[in-house]
């Protein structure tokens, strides 16, 4: 080998960022990838529901051309067919289209109500755990009381109180789902408070607000993400329960 072609030093091996690492591990997990694909596809279908009828007409696919409120009373409750992929309900409305529209509401509830629950829960828990002492005891007693209160009562009265608007319903569901989140965050923050790097931040003279936002919250994000993924389906089911009661969408 010609010695002149040998590089003087070994090329530096490219490092992996945390995101690259996570992506590589995710790619190895076939089950997770397949699930992610299905969920994304379903989500996109739901989001795209309003543009599907013109698209279906253009492509000549009759199964996609139905409006969610178009009735064909002569049809009644029909079984699945080429024209109606999932059949029709008792008023002759296309079930597939209605399912997609229902999915839109579920997705919206999942995102918005979880957002509300996340915001209240994380802030409440972080403040309670960080400040500690009497305030902490008081705030956690309040959580205990709300825990002992049946959430059905709370949600029914909130929806009656706030009116029947969609985003108020999200707020109402979020307002009853933040309790566990607050407890988790509080526990994490209370234990983080005694760590050295937080002490160092105190010694450097950072304000409390900054310590909570910059040092505490990034460190509690792990359990919060896990619990958030559990909250999304929980609020969707809660919305379905409200519909069962006649208070939903």
């Amino acid at each position, binding site marked *: 080998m010609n010695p002149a072609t040998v590089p003087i030093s070994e090329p530096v091996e490219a490092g992996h960022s945390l995101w690259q690492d996570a992506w590589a591990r995710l790619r190895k997990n076939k089950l997770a990838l397949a699930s992610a694909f299905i969920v994304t596809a379903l989500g996109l279908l739901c989001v795209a529901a309003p543009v599907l009828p013109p698209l279906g007409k253009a492509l000549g696919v009759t199964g996609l051309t139905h409006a969610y409120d178009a009735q064909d009373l002569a049809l009644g409750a029909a079984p699945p067919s080429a024209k109606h992929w999932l059949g029709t309900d008792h008023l002759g409305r296309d079930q597939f289209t209605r399912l997609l529209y229902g999915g839109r509401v579920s997705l919206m509830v999942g995102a918005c109500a979880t957002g509300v629950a996340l915001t209240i829960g994380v802030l409440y828990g972080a403040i309670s755990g960080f400040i500690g002492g009497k305030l902490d005891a008081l705030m956690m007693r309040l959580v205990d009381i709300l825990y*002992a*209160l*049946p959430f*059905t009562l709370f949600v029914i009265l909130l929806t009656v109180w706030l009116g029947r608007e969609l985003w108020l319903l999200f707020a109402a569901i979020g307002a009853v789902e933040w309790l566990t989140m607050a407890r988790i965050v509080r526990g994490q923050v209370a234990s983080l408070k005694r760590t050295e790097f937080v002490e160092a931040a105190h010694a450097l003279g950072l304000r409390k607000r900054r310590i909570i936002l910059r040092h505490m919250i990034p460190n509690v994000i792990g359990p919060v993400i896990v619990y958030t993924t559990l909250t999304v*389906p929980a609020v969707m089911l809660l919305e379905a329960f409200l519909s*069962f009661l006649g208070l939903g969408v």
Partner: protein
Amino acid sequence: MARFLLIRLLQTLPVLWAVATLTFFMVRYAPGGPFTAEKNIPPEILKRLEAHYGLDKPLSEQYVAFLKSLVTGQQPSIRHSNRTVGEIIRKSFPVSLELGAWALLIALAIGLPAGMLAAQKPNSAQDYVPMSAAMVGVCLPTFVLGPMVVLFFALKLGWFHTSGWNTPGDRVLPALTLGFHLAAYVARLTRGGMLEVMGQDFIRTARAKGASGLRILTRHALRGGLLPVVTFLGPAAAGLITGSFVIETVFNIPGLGKYFVGSVFDRDIPVVGGTVFFFSAIILFFNLVVDVAQAWLNPKVRLE
């Protein structure tokens, strides 16, 4: 131990009082009243109705009467005017309790073995099959599963009645529906808890000294592995025995859950107050039971 129990019981009193107070003012300030549903009541009759139930008195007096009625349970219901709150609870709670107990039994009988089986050989068929079934159980809400089992077992096969609460056979479908849903959670929690314990040093020690697989499972792993299940079951059991509104509606069962939801819609203050108070007391009681059970299962937890 006795001291711990006494202090904890005393601590529940202010919580119960706060729950009752919150309930009273929330229902009183919510729009609508117990008589708004009935159309066109002449004002003078409405006035007499309100006077009859003490709703015309100042709010503070109503509040005191409300607190008193929680203790005695003697307040008459507004909606079911021939019965008192105490009678309603005494009549419908045993129904919910029985249904809840059966469901709990089914959940444990299916969920615990399934979870333990899955934890024995993680990431094998023995793990995937029960855990996939559990995932289905978690995803299926009871108001979907309920009508489905009715359709199949009651209408197609004709084994049971579609609804009601008269013969022993009427217990089967609602208890199965409720129990299967809960079993899914129990199985998942059992698997997680057992896997965590099985990886620990003291299990390896037990294995090294030659204990058999069965002995390790029953003597060493089970206590620690069941901790998450116990934590979950406390509030879940409290919810179960106080009545599941969905199940009671689907199967038309005269349980507590239906009275509770109905009374909130009717603003039937005495019944709302009574059922909420009852429900909260049971939740708090089960939380206490969970704490004691945790201390018994886990030597690291101390009751203070």
